[in-house]
């Protein structure tokens, strides 16, 4: 039981960061299908920097800068160039999927992974997980209790009102994207040098999209989004615990056990979540 909780926490940590980072952007009215790309690029950057510096703190910071930069690119494309948010997001995802193998091949002679870092150069897992547990409260405060939060919500729900009061919608959204990118990057760095000890090609394996689902699951509110991320982490951990468990000499085949998360998610989606209303002006230019 304790193992199940610990395992769920470890697996949901990257989701929590990505979902809450993405939430910030979405509440500001920017569709962030590019979460996956930001996770990937930050995971790669952190792992690469860690190989050269052996300093987890530097690595996580540079990882955050890289993630922010990619979100900044998204801001540039969607806010300055007025590109479609989904198209820009997909472009960023493709860029982030292709760049690491190319650079990794050039720097380390392997397109599939970076060299592994020794255990003393890795992020402290408990510290990151603790941060993931506190983050939703901080986000709740930021979004609902600060003036920046108010502007953020207006940028997403009524950008006209924000504009009328003389505040640049583009600037608020860009700020939200940069901050959201930095938060998401914490999840990426955790993936490569916290939970693992190296970057592997496509190691996020769709975490960014699951985080996006968690945002919708949690109806764009920080605490429910956090809980939804935990739920997705739990559905990943559960099949592992169930594997090899026998009941009266019978055990479920691996294939069945691995279908559990999907069945569980569909079930919850159909029965309890109900309709989710996105920020009104999401995706607007």
């Amino acid at each position, binding site marked *: 039981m304790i193992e199940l909780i610990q395992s769920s926490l470890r697996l949901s940590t990257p989701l929590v960061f990505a979902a809450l980072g993405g939430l910030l952007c979405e509440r500001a009215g920017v569709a962030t299908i590019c979460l996956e790309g930001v996770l990937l690029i930050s995971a790669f950057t952190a792992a690469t920097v860690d190989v050269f510096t052996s300093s987890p703190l530097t690595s996580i910071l540079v990882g955050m800068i890289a993630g922010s930069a990619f979100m900044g690119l998204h801001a540039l494309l969607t806010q300055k160039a007025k590109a479609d948010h989904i198209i820009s997001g997909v472009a960023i995802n493709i860029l982030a999927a292709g760049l690491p193998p190319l650079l990794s091949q050039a720097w380390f002679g392997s397109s599939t992974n970076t060299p592994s870092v020794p255990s003393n150069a890795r992020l402290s897992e408990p510290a990151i997980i603790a941060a993931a547990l506190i983050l939703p409260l901080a986000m709740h405060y930021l979004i609902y209790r600060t003036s920046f939060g108010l502007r953020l919500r207006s940028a997403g729900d009524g950008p006209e009102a924000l504009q009328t009061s003389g505040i640049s919608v583009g600037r608020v959204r860009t700020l939200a994207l940069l901050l959201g990118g930095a938060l998401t990057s914490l999840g990426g760095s955790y993936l490569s040098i916290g939970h693992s*000890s190296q970057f592997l090609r*496509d190691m996020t394996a769709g975490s960014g999209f699951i985080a996006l689902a968690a945002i919708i699951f949690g109806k764009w509110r920080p605490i429910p989004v956090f809980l939804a991320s935990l739920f997705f982490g739990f559905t990943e951990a559960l099949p592992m615990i169930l594997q090899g468990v026998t009941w009266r000499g019978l055990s479920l085949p691996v294939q069945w056990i691995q279908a559990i998360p999907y069945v569980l998610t569909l079930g919850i989606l159909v029965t309890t979540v109900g309709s989710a209303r996105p920020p009104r002006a999401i995706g607007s230019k």
Partner: protein
Amino acid sequence: MPRRSWLLCLILFLLTHRAFPLATQPLKVGLVLDRGGKDDKSFNASAFRGATRAQKELTIHLKVLECSSDSAFVPSIRTFAQHGYDLIIGIGFVQKSAIEAVAKQFPNLSFLLIDAPSTLPNIRSIIFQEHEGSYLVGTIAALTSKTKSVGFIGGMDIPLIRRFELGYRTGAQSVSSLVKILTHYVGSSSEAWRDPARAKELALLQFSKGVDVVFCAAGSSCLGVFDAAEERKKFAIGVDSNQNWVKPGTILTSMVKGVDQAVFDSIRLKLRGSFTGGTVHMGLKEDAISFSIDENNRKVLTPAVEQEALNIREQILNGLIKVPDYYHLNKPLSTPK
């Protein structure tokens, strides 16, 4: 010794005669790796090592492709075939259907398939007797374990890996019937070969249930198992390549599968013109399966355990120990599908 020098002349003549056209147009070898990629430090790394050794020693033209998805196998193999590569090597059982599809279209080219059988005349397929090596590391694990419970983490749930598991299980239980064995599989798709995060969670789970030695047969997913073992100060057993160096002191030993040797030998056969199709079995007897000892695990693998493992190796070779083979469990003497 006139006779001998005559023979020498003949050999020299044959060699130069063969070597001459080779110098102008070297043998073209295409290597298509499995999902783990050439730096998985395990299965693919071994194949890559064998191919690069051939490149250095036999002066062949070598091109290596890594596939990022299962659907990329056929196009990669076909590209090699269309460019007239003389020998195309597919690593891993997942490439069986892809290799066979292309081999049918290009009956004049030669193909090498590792880990899966094939009946096509231009495919040479190599099957390793993994169960024998797994039996050996199973006994090593059980002899080393203080808690008398050992773990197995497989990659994709397929007969090949079940074969590892059965050998390991039998080996561990041969030490004592009281030894507990926990088994987990990373997944049921080829993603399972490259999911260290999940493999790590499985290893942590096994450790929490008292396991203190875990054997991992899961390609690059094993890197996660090694991380877990290092964190919890337990032992892990590597697979396919000698992985002792990856985490010295944590990796008890590795079950080495001579993929590098098989690849190298096949290229050499092709070069000498004696490449033939058919299925080749390689095991302990051919020294294609072994467990590794080097300076990285000297301190953790005790001499007593090593001696015992060597004794058991002898007994398997003499036929005193029959290691059950998962492929022949239900259908005696048939090859796997």
